[in-house]
């Protein structure tokens, strides 16, 4: 475990982005044509349909969740975690490889204060917009075009975080 002092830059806090870590660069993807990414678009489409059909993207459902007026969102997130957990357990247990034969890798997340400060900030924003980043895209798809403003603002927020990252407590 690397000890961070004030001279050193802040280490990686973003475990969704692998390409910044040379060890994790996915070789098979390097030479793959852009079209090979279409399979992710297909998963995204299915995912987006579930989002809308289960009304997870509804501002009102998020309000009901935070007002404890409905079990719906707790059921969705809870059962998604249970299914995800069982799947990961099976993949690890039987050392299942990807369709292309690659070993599936998992990165451990390390704790930093950003998970608290950033988490609280996202929670505040979540209750306002009624959407985490995924539902923003789906809401736009359903025809709520004004949500494009929310999405652009979220991109701006990400940019400002990146700009002032070194000055923030982590």
């Amino acid at each position, binding site marked *: 475990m690397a000890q961070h002092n004030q001279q050193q*830059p802040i280490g990686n806090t973003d475990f969704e982005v*692998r390409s910044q870590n040379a060890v994790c660069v996915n070789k098979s993807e390097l030479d793959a044509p852009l079209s090979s990414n279409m399979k*992710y678009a297909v*998963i*995204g489409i*299915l995912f*987006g*349909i*579930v*989002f*809308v*059909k289960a009304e*997870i993207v509804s*501002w*009102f459902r998020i309000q009901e*969740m*935070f*007002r404890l*007026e409905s079990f719906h969102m707790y*059921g*969705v*997130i809870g059962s*998604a*975690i249970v*299914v*995800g957990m069982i799947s*990961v357990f099976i*993949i690890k247990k039987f050392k299942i490889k990807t369709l292309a034969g690659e070993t*599936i890798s998992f990165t*451990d997340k390390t*704790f930093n204060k950003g*998970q*608290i400060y*950033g*988490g*609280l*900030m*996202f*929670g*505040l924003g*979540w*209750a*306002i917009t009624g959407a*985490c*980043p995924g539902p*923003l*895209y*789906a809401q736009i*798809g*359903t*025809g*709520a075009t004004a*949500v494009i*403003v929310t999405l652009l*603002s*979220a991109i701006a*927020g990400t*940019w400002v*975080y*990146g700009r002032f990252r070194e000055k923030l407590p982590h």
Partner: protein
Amino acid sequence: MLEFITKPWPWYVAGPLIGLTVPALLLIGNKSFGISSSLRHMCAACIPAKIPFFQYDWKKEVWNLFFVFGVLVGGIIAAQLLANPEPIVIHPDLAADMAKYNITDTSHIVPSDLFSWPALATPRGIIMMVVGGFMVGFGTRYAGGCTSGHAIMGISTLQWPSLVATCCFMIGGFIMTHLILPYILAL
């Protein structure tokens, strides 16, 4: 069958399907489920501005942008082809409270009284769309993930920092809904 598809899907159908996204992405290409990083890739692709946080090869993460584009298309398909003909039913207490703030159109996914182009000209609309969106973008990246990356992928892989982050998401949401949002809605 078609009737089942057009009706709102219950949580015990939707939740497991969303959970299956985790193994689907892992098996297809060894990808970790996470949506908020798409915002970072867009910054890295369009406005990196020599900021170290955006200096990485976003092209290697382009799958994530395909995925979120798919989510948008999924939204179009669900709304155009599989739409529920009946208006969304919300909790009567929520409807009564919203009526106090002149939010009467509860039939849509997003309340048009708050999120629409005309609403962008109101202080309330600006806070809801611009400030809210900013907090989502800033907060998720500060936290290193959102509901998908932390709550679902993180907890699925037993990462305790993700559990901390998820608890903070919920605490932030409760604080906003109960202590701050009533003042914003009253604007």
